């Protein structure tokens, strides 16, 4: 029987930001219809959770898949510095800041800044509120 050990570490980060959902290619009426109160003209905000997962082999000497302080520093630099306490429509001007798009943007930023010595980025899960979450998984394990 083939078995192998699998270790995945997940770290949760928090950021607070405002946004307004408004698609520039749709009419005002269509936007109100589609996004409802999320289209209110002056925006609103959320306390987001971004859960970042890494997977790989745990080195015997350190016992760490990844140094948590190093991961924290990367996420701070690549994501939180720009997105925490910001208006997402201003910080990410080229996309409608739905949580789908924000999760994908976080994944792109992390991938672009990902150090070669880090274990594989396994996924990004973005919680907009406690009741909805959006997840991207890197399926090649």
């Amino acid at each position, binding site marked *: *029987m*083939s*078995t*192998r*050990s*699998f*270790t*995945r*570490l*997940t*770290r*949760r*980060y928090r950021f607070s930001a405002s946004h307004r959902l408004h698609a520039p290619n749709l009419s005002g009426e269509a936007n109100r219809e589609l996004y409802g109160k999320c289209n209110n003209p002056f925006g609103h905000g959320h306390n987001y959770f971004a859960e970042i997962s890494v997977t790989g082999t*745990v080195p015997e*000497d*350190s*016992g*760490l*898949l990844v*140094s*948590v*302080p*190093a991961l*924290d520093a990367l996420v701070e630099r690549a994501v939180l510095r720009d997105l925490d306490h910001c208006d997402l429509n201003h910080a990410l001007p080229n996309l409608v800041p739905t949580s789908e798009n924000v999760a994908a943007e976080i994944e792109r930023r992390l991938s672009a800044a990902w150090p070669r010595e880090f274990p594989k980025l396994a996924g990004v899960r973005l919680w907009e509120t406690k009741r909805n979450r959006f997840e991207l998984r890197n399926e090649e394990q």
Partner: protein
Amino acid sequence: MLITRRVEFSASHICASPALSEAENRALYGAGANPHGHGHNYVLEVTLAGEPDPVTGMVFDLRELKEILQREVVLPMDHRFLNREVAPFGDVVPTTENIAAEIWRRLEPNFRGPARSGNVRLNNVRLYETEDLFVDYSEAAL
């Protein structure tokens, strides 16, 4: 079908490698390397995989699972200093990764072979060190 039971234990530890300097340990493990240790309320989620028994309707008896978790994990680790009191953490750094793997090793032999309520297997161990940091560990066949 997957079934998961959650259990908690509280323990202290120090994360530092004897092969590294104090500064290197601090860079790698952060505050986890503080020399007198610190503690967490660990939350463990143990997931079993199996099919419900046609008679009992259960994948595994949750009361028996609770007893196994008490015996293998909570009694030896709860309110203990892991580096000093729980093997193998005198020699192995008790990172969340290593504790999750050790819990797998302790639990897995309990779920081999046909159990009373079905051919159940240990599927996953998830250990939360805090609500912001957790590790999943599995040796389940892929």
